[in-house]
Structure formats: structure tokens, C-alpha cells
């Protein structure tokens, strides 16, 4: 390994690279492009993964949402197209029948109303909810607290409003906690202000009031608009979704094969699709990146082969002067490794730079799900090591070609 640290070895390499500047640059670009693509694509894929993770972050990803529509099959004397509603009775039945599977269950009722505070007003959604909602979809509170069980039991006229509502309805700097707000002409006491998540959100700007209060004020009796269910760890959510729907069909005298009567979304399944897409993209990235890398390395081998051919005479002279085949081989392989290494480093630097620019451009933009696009250092090292190994291997070919020519034939070459 002594030759690696010999300044002469490097001078020889520098000499031969300087002699073929244009070709050296073109060669380097081949490998540079490969590793650049690998770094940028992997970084982008990682950024997207991070972005989607954040998007789903505040949400329990093992959630199922269920609501009612109209039946599409006549059953038990009912005609098709019948409308019906979920009831609190359904909630109780599900809770007791699926006590092993269901972790949280939030029945919800929602409507739109005018919210008034002093002389300011705005039209917003109002939602009757249980405190359990906070566990399914974490609320980031700026002031005060979310609804609690006491509010439910006492049917308290309290509300938790969004940041936007606070900005629209309150003067700047006013502490909203304890202030009163008119919803549908009824006074509610503000107990909390939350910041809507910029991720998946089904509510947007919603004023939350206790479910029991909603029932009383809007006279919804037993009715439930829709419900959110989250499953316990280890539960087969798809099976649970099917079973729950079947139970509900039984309760509401809906044909078991009815496809329209109940609407449902399995969040896990939807996220699975996206995750699968990201995994596919990462696979594609690896494939494209490595294929480009290999192409680049072959280009280096090709160029070196031509260089060796052109330098046949020089190699002949060197051998007449006492260069052993080993020393010639070493030099050519080292040249190959040197070129691939420099190209690799430049590729990684440019790739990182582009990732940095992408990050700087989109990090403040919540619309683009791309967060912290990075590539793992071990991955870089592996790619780099692969590059050096490939560079060595591809260098073996021209190195071999350089030494199989007899010195006398090499000297005759003009």
C-alpha cells in the first residue's frame, strides 16, 4: 500500500488526467450524475415519507370512519333508497360487542352556525363531541383546555374554538378564555383555543361543544351523524370494519349485501396505499440510481481503455525503463478509483446541495408534503464503497490490457 501515499504515484495520475482534460471531465460527469440522482431521489423519497408521516402524524392511523347513506337493495319490506340514521343505541351495541377490538369510539354530530362575539361574527362549523376525540385526533391547544367528561355530564354550554375563529371574532390581545360567544343565539363560554393541524383534518375550523349539549340544543335526540373508531393494537382493522358494518346492517334492517347504505373509510388502508407508493418510489430510486452509477462506472472503464490504447507507447517506454507490470496495473487501477472517487464526492456534494435548496424552498410551505429531505450517512457510505469497488473492478480491464501487450510491441506503436 506504500504506493498509495507516494507523491509520485499521484503525480503520474495527475499527469495523465491533465493530458486528457475534456475526457476526464466527461467521464466524471457520468458517475457524478449517477450518484447525484441517487442522492437527490433518495432524499426526495425520504422527504415525502417524512411529509406523509407528518400528514398522518396527529391521526391515529388505525381509524375507521362510518356514516349512513341510502340503501340500494330492498330488504324486509323496505324499499331501496331508504334514508336512516345512526343512533346512540348503535354506539352502545358496538362498544359492547367489539370491546376487544375497539379502542376508542367517538360519535359525532355536526352542523353549520353563525358565531357571534360582540359585534363580530362568522359562519363556522359546530361539532358535538366527546372528549375522546382529542385522543383520536390530537388537538394542539393554544389556550385553555379541550372538552372533558364533566362538560358532558353537566351538558355545559362551553366551546373550544379554533385559532382562526379567535382571530376573527376577538380583538387582538384579548384573553378568550372565559369570554362568551353566541352560537345560534345561545351563549357559550370559551374554554379553549386550538390550532388546526395542517395535516389530515376532517374538521377544519370547528367550534367543539359537548355532545350532550349539542343533543339538547339542536334536539337531535338519539341521532348520530357519523362516528370515528380506532382499533386496539393487533386488531385486523379490515375485518373489524367489515364486522361492524354487518352488525350495523343488522341493527338497521339493511340487506347484508347492501353496498351503499353505509359509507366508511379505513384510514389505515388509505395510508397503506400511500406508504406502498413511497416504498415503490424508493425502490425505483435505488434501481435508477444504481443503474446510472453502473453506466457511469462503465464509461470510466471505457475511457480508460481508450487512454491505455493511446498510451501503449508510453507504457512500452516505461517498461523498457524497468516498470513492472504490477506497477503499471496499479497506476491504471488507481486512476480509475481516483476518478470514480472524485466523481462520487462531487455527486454527493451537488446532490446534498440540491436537497438543501429543495428543503429551503419548501420547508415553509405546508402544501408540499416534503419535509427534511435527507439521505442516511450509512447509505452514502455504502454507495461510495460500492463506487470504489466498481471503479477498481472496471479499472482491472484496461490495466490488464495495458500489460498483455509485450513491451517490444508497445514500443513499435506509433
Amino acid at each position, binding site marked *: 500500500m506504500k504506493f498509495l501515499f507516494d*507523491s509520485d504515484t499521484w503525480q503520474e495520475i495527475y*499527469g495523465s488526467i491533465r493530458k486528457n482534460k475534456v475526457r476526464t471531465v466527461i467521464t466524471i460527469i457520468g458517475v457524478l450524475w449517477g450518484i447525484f440522482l441517487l442522492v437527490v431521489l433518495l432524499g426526495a423519497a425520504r422527504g415525502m415519507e417524512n411529509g406523509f408521516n407528518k400528514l398522518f402524524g396527529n391521526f391515529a392511523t388505525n381509524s375507521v370512519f362510518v356514516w349512513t347513506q341510502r340503501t340500494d337493495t330492498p330488504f324486509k319490506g323496505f324499499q331501496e333508497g331508504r334514508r336512516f340514521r345512526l343512533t346512540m343505541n348503535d354506539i352502545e351495541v358496538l362498544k359492547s360487542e367489539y370491546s376487544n377490538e375497539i379502542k376508542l369510539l367517538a360519535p359525532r354530530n355536526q352542523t353549520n352556525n353563525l358565531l357571534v362575539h360582540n359585534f363580530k361574527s362568522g359562519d363556522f362549523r359546530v361539532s358535538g363531541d366527546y372528549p375522546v376525540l382529542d385522543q383520536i385526533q390530537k388537538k394542539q391547544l393554544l389556550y385553555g383546555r379541550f372538552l372533558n367528561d364533566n362538560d358532558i355530564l353537566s351538558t355545559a354550554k362551553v366551546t373550544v374554538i379554533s385559532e382562526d375563529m379567535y382571530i376573527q371574532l376577538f380583538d387582538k390581545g384579548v384573553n378568550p378564555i372565559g369570554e362568551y360567544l353566541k352560537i345560534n343565539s345561545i351563549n357559550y363560554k370559551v374554554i379553549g383555543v386550538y390550532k388546526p393541524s395542517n395535516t389530515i383534518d376532517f374538521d377544519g375550523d370547528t367550534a367543539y361543544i359537548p355532545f350532550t349539549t349539542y343533543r339538547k340544543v339542536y334536539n337531535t335526540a338519539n341521532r348520530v351523524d357519523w362516528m370515528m373508531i380506532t382499533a386496539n393494537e393487533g386488531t385486523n382493522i379490515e375485518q373489524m370494519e367489515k364486522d361492524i358494518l354487518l352488525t350495523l346492517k343488522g341493527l338497521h334492517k339493511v340487506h347484508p349485501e347492501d353496498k351503499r347504505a353505509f359509507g366508511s373509510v379505513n384510514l389505515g388502508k388509505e395510508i397503506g396505499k400511500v406508504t406502498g407508493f413511497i416504498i415503490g418510489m424508493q425502490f425505483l430510486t435505488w434501481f435508477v440510481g444504481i443503474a446510472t452509477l453502473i453506466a457511469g462506472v462503465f464509461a470510466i472503464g471505457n475511457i480508460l481503455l481508450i487512454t491505455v490504447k493511446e498510451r501503449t507507447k508510453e507504457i512500452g*517506454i*516505461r517498461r523498457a525503463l*524497468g516498470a*513492472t507490470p504490477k506497477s503499471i496495473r496499479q497506476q491504471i487501477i488507481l486512476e480509475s478509483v481516483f476518478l470514480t472517487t472524485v466523481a462520487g464526492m462531487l455527486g454527493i456534494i451537488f446532490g446534498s446541495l440540491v436537497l438543501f435548496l429543495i428543503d429551503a424552498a419548501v420547508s415553509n410551505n405546508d402544501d408540499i408534503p416534503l419535509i427534511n429531505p435527507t439521505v442516511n450517512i450509512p447509505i452514502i457510505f455504502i454507495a461510495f464503497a460500492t463506487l470504489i469497488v466498481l471503479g477498481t473492478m472496471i479499472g482491472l480491464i484496461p490495466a490488464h490490457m495495458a500489460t498483455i501487450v509485450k513491451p517490444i510491441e508497445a514500443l513499435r506503436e506509433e
Partner: protein
Amino acid sequence: MIKIEKLHKSYPIGKDSLHVLKGIDLHIKEGEFVSIMGSSGSGKSTLLNIVGLLDIHDEGDYYLNDQLIKDMNEKKSAILRNKFLGFVFQSFNLISYKTALENVALPLYYKGMSRKERLKVALEYLDKVGLKDWANHLPNELSGGQKQRVAIARALVTKPKVVLADEPTGALDSTTTDSVMDLLKDINDEGMTVFVITHEEEVAEQTKRIVRLKDGVIISDELTKASKAV
């Protein structure tokens, strides 16, 4: 120094083979100044290549410095070349992107000498051939005679036993030819064995022994006036 017995060499040409050297016997002692003469195709270059370990013979024995040359691999012959032989070529064969000094120092690199030391030695030899001031010039900045003198310095730098010169004056005009030959004479006077290939009578006459080759055999081997004068 060089002892050749019944040396044969043929090259395959298609299905046939060309018999180039047909039993050469030659004995060159240390300190001799020998020229090999012959028209093109007489086999003189082949002989030099075999003596220079750039090619291998088919039959016969070749002793270099009392060592039988047999079953050589590239590594062994590279080391022997570096140790015992110095080459001077007709077309100089300097490496174009290296300065005169670096060209002269190159054999010492393959010998494993440190950079500082070999540049020092190389400069000494450049001084010897009168080109110290041109040390940092590239070959294309030198005249033909200067290039050949750099090449001679390069051949001498490893202190070889034998200097092999293949038409050293072939690409030079008569004045520079004389200066190159004078240089070779000086080297020989210092005790170095010099082995020149040429087809120019004037050049051959300046050596001490002329061996004439024709169609792969030695037709004459005689001492010259130059040798008798000493």
C-alpha cells in the same frame, strides 16, 4: 558481459514463420563499444530486443552478466532491465508531458529511489550531457540532439552494465550525430559497455568493434581503426 550461443528467433507470419536470427554466436566483454551493422531485415533490431530483454529468443543460450536468461516473466525481466540495461532509441521515446529532469529520473522511480534523491542524481546526469539548464523544459521544447542527450542521460542514470542504442543517430543531422557519438564514446571511456545498432558506416566506424549481420547470420566481426588507435 553478453554471451550469446546459437541464438535462433522466428516470428510467426500467418501460417508460416519468418526465421529472423539463424544461429548467432556473439560474445561481448565488459567495456566494449560494439556496433551491429546490417541492412533492414537483417535481424539487427531483433537481436537488440533480445539482448535488451524486450523480446524472448526461441533457441540457444543468452547470458547477461553471467546469468542465463531463461523462463523470464515480465516482472523478472523488468527488474533486470532496470538493473543492468539502459536504452537509447531512435525516436528518443521521452514522455511528452514530463520535463527533461523527470524523464531522466523515471528509471530511478521504478528502482524505488526517493523523489528528492532521484531528482538530485538525475540533475547530475543531465549536467553530464550538458543540459543542466534545460532540466525543466518539456521534450517538445528541445532540439533532436538535446532530446537524444536527455535519453542518454536517462539510460545512464541507473548505472547500467550495458547501454543499448537502437539507431541513436537515425533521426539526427550530422553535427548532432557527432555530438551524440562523442557522448557515447565518453561513456565507453569510463568503462561502460555500449552496444549500438546502426546502418551508417560513419557511425559504426566510431565504435571499436563492428559486427555485420546479413539475413540472420553474422558475416563479419572485426575491430576498427578507432580501437587500434587506443
